[in-house]
Structure formats: C-alpha cells, structure tokens
C-alpha cells in the first residue's frame, strides 16, 4: 500500500509567486496614492493659507471688510452668502428631492422608473456653467419682472422680500442651487430607500397597509438616517458650487437681510478674484477662504457618508 503524497497545497500561504506580490503592491500603491493625494490637498492648503491665518486669525471669519488695496480681509459676507444661499436651496430641494426619491423607489409604476431615474441623472450631468448661463439670461429677468415685484407686493412686510428687484441676487442663487442639488438628493435618497430590506415592506403590506402607509411607516422610518445623509450630501454640493452661483448672485460683498439683494459666496470670490490677486497676502486670504470651504465640506460629507453607510453599508457606491 502506498501513501499518496499530498503535494504542496498547504504551502499556499501569504507571499506566493512574484506576480502576485507585484500586483498586490501596485494595487496597494494606487490606494495609498489616493489617500496621500487627499493628505497633500490638506497640507498644501494649510501651507498657502498660513500667512493670512497668521495675520487675521479667527477675526477673519467675523469681520466684513474686504479691501484688497489696504490688504484688510474679512470673510464674513462670503460665509454669510454661502450659508444663506445653500439653506435657501435646501429649503426648496429637500421636499422635492425626497418626494421624487419616494416616487422613484416606492410608488411609481415599474415601467416609468428606469427612464425617470435616467432623466434625474441627466439633470445632475448638466454642467454648472450652463445653469449659470440660463440663470443670467432666463431666470434673472423672470425674477426681476414677475416674481420679485409679486413677492414684494404680497410679502413685502418681511425684511426678506424688501428692496429693489435686481433679478440677480441671493434668491436667484438659491433657486439655481436648488435645481442643481435636487438630483443629488433624489439619487442618493433613492439608493437609500432601495437599500431598505424588502422584509420591512412585506411586513407592513401583510398587515394591510396601503403603499403610502408602507412607505411612511416601514421604509422612511428605517431609512431615516440615510435620508439625512442624502440631504447633507446635497448641502455639501450647494456649499461648494461655484460657477452658476457666481453668475447669478450679483457678487457684492455685503451682508444684506433681503433675499433680493446681491450677495457673494466663498466659492465665487475665489473664482472671481484668484487670478487678480496681486499680493501674496491677498492670494493667501483667498486660499484661506478655500481652506475654510474645504474643511466645512469635508465635515459635512464625512458625516453624510457615515449616515448613508448606516443604511446601505459602505461597499455600495452611491451614485450621484
């Protein structure tokens, strides 16, 4: 009787042949480069923003003088403009986006879902500069001649709707931003809803709930944190959106309560003045604004991802 010799099966442990090791190394390197790239962005921004941070410190974000000639820089009007235009955009975009996602994931007839989802993708694919072009030549005149006079006449007692109707201004920026972020909110919310386990739906339906009741009680409640994440993702987009806003907000560095008044955002001031920055301190101040924007969007996005991941798991890429 001969013993069958078992060949080297057990030997196949970690470092195998050379090809495997090389490929593993290359792949790991690619991932490492990605991580290092983001680290490099942080380091570079910090390095170049340092002179302005040194000179102005925390006063930078609470003072509103923007005087390149005298080299006195305060970013308050830009921070204000970014925050107000983004919140205005969310006010419009959240109900629409979540509603559309509910329709796409839960309530729509099956045949309408794929084409509608594709159209939403296309809304997201329209370049920002085209929204801006449309904003300048169509939306702003529309607001100036119809919407703003109407709002002024009916709601003019509120400080939000006072002042001359320019067309361009905070309101136009908010509307354009809403149009731009709503497809992101829709797409991510839809992914979140689709990630809700079917057993949730089946349980509610088996108890006799209607489609809407199922959605409200079994689906939306389950996916709540993911939906908040989707909204935060939209907020992150709105905060950093540049071209369209630059083209319709009016670019005046003032803090004005009225939504009719022109404003300015952090991203637009960088877009408009970066190539004109004549002194090192001016450039550094602009990069400081960029750094602020970067930090805020990273925090918003990180939070959003963790919330979205809490429903669908981290592996599924969220299409935006």
């Amino acid at each position, binding site marked *: 009787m001969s013993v069958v010799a078992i060949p080297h099966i057990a030997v196949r442990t970690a470092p195998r042949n050379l090809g495997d090791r090389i490929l593993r190394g290359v792949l790991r390197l690619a991932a490492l480069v990605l991580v290092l*790239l983001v680290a490099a*962005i942080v380091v570079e921004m910090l390095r170049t923003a340092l002179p302005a941070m040194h000179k102005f410190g925390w006063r930078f974000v609470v003072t509103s003088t923007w005087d390149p000639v005298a080299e006195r820089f305060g970013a308050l009007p830009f921070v204000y403009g970014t925050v107000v235009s983004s919140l205005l955009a969310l006010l419009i975009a959240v109900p629409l986006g979540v*509603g559309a996602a509910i329709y796409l994931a839960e309530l729509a007839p099956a045949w309408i879902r794929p084409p509608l989802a594709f159209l939403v993708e296309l809304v997201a694919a329209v*370049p920002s500069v085209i929204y801006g072009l449309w904003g300048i030549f169509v939306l702003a005149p529309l607001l100036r001649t119809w919407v703003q006079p109407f709002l002024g006449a009916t709601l003019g007692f509120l400080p939000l709707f006072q002042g001359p109707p320019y067309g361009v201004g905070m309101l136009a920026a908010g509307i354009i931003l809403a149009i731009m972020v709503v497809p992101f909110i*829709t797409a991510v919310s839809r992914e979140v809803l689709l990630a809700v386990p079917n057993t949730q739906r089946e349980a509610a339906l088996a108890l006799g709930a209607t489609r809407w009741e199922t959605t409200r009680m079994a689906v939306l409640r389950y996916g709540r944190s993911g939906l908040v994440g989707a909204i935060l993702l939209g907020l992150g987009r709105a905060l950093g959106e540049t071209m369209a806003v630059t083209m319709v907000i009016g670019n005046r560095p003032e803090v004005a309560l009225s939504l009719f008044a022109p404003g300015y955002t952090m991203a637009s001031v960088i877009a408009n003045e970066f*190539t004109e920055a004549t002194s090192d301190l001016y450039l550094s101040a602009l990069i400081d604004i960029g750094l602020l924007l970067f930090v805020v969007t990273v925090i918003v996005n990180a939070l959003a991802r963790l919330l979205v991941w809490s429903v669908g798991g981290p592996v599924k890429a*969220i299409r935006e």
Partner: protein
Amino acid sequence: MTPAARRGINIVMSGVAALAAALVVLPLLVIFGFLLWQGASAVNVDFFLHLPKPVGEAGGGMANAIVGTLILVMLAAALGLPLGIFGGLYLAESRDRRLPWLARFVADVLNGVPSIVIGIFAYTVIVLPMKRFSALAGGFALAVIMLPIVVRTSEEMVRLVPSSLREAALALGIPEWKVLLRVVLPTARAGIITGVMVAIARVAGETAPLLFTAFGNRFWHQGLDQPIAALPLQIFAYAIAPYDDWHRQAWAGALTLIGLVFVVSLAARVVTSGRFTGVR
C-alpha cells in the same frame, strides 16, 4: 380611519410624489429647450472651424475651445484612469484590514470636495512651481476630480463579477494576479467603461477648477505647458461679457457642450444595458 380615506390618502400622496419627481426633471427640459432655441441659430460651420474674433468683431467660432476641452479631458483620463481602476480593483479584492476602509472613505470625501478647491490645489502644486498657467495643470485638476468616481464605480463593477468565475480560474492553477488581470478585469470591463464615461461627462463640463489652471486662451493650443482654451471657460467668459454676439456664441457653446455631455452619458448607458442586473 375608514379604508376609503386611507385609499384616498394613498392616491393623494402618490400624486404629490409624482409631482415632486416631475418638478425635479422639469428644469432639464426647460433648459434644454432654451439651449436648442437660442443655440441652434448660432451654431454654424464657422463656429466649429474658426478661432474667436477680436473683441468687437462679429463672427468667429470656438474651435480652439472645443479642441482644448478634448485635450484636457484626454490628459485627465491619462492621469486619472489607471490609478482609478487599480484603486477600485484594490478596494474590491484586497483582504487588508484598514487601508481599504480608509481609501474608500477618502474617495467618497474627495468626491464631495468642491471642484474650485481642487483648482486651488492644482494651482499651488503645478502652476506656482511652473510659474505659468498650463494645460497640464488643468488636466491634473480634472484628473483629481475624476479619480474618486472611477475608483468607486470600478470597485462596484469588480464586485459584481461572480466568484465562481474567479474560483474556476484559480482551480485551474492560474496565479491570482493573472486571474485578476485576465479574468476579473475583462469581465467587469463594460461596467468600468460606464464609470469612466460618467467621470468624463462630469469633468468635460467643469469650469471652476480650470479658471486658474488651464486659464483659457484665444488661440490654438501651443503645448501642454501653455494656457489652453476650454469650452466651459469660453462659455463663462462670453456669458458675462457685454456683447450680444458673444451671448449668442455662449448659447451655441453651451449647446455643443451639453450635446457632448449627453452623448457620453447615453453611451455610458448603452455599454452596460443588459450586461449586469446589478447595474441600475
């Protein structure tokens, strides 16, 4: 609540949700309509073949900007795609403990970083040392924007490859690296190409990161170390200028750009249609 009332609420809420969906899509139709209306009259042969005329002269075209955008996108693809696809393959296949989670998170965060911030980054690492605006800096900025999209879609597509395929190849004694490169990657090819096209459609329309990297140019491109024209930049410059003829050309440029973006997006769709059930 009576069953009739509950059914009524169900119908009303379905209607409200459908209305929301319609309102989300409406701007697309409105904007596309305006682009056709305003742009079609300004698009002619000159527009595609000629350089911009000097300020004040009517006519001319955006040929240099169209070529410039193609060059910038190709440059971005050359820089960003290999890294992105390998990164995605790593995320899908690696059994490392911490790096995949970190890289995945970093990719998603990078995806959310405003493109103008990426522009500043490209400015400080390429424009400042070179002391001039350049196509290279613009292409680099666009590559950084492409990267996370390519990484994440590649990862997702590689994950969709059935493990039985992998196991069959491994059982034949093929080394793992060959299985990955010759079996897994080709199987996921269609999906990866879709991701690549989505990324290209996205960066082709980017304006903000090009403002102070590629900078724009009113002439044909003169080498990768020189400023280069780009369609979105030209649209922006013409839109905010005070000349009617430039506005007309901005609409024409916008129509061209959106045509480009839509064709690439549609093609991305066609490549994967019916290939994987997992692709939505």
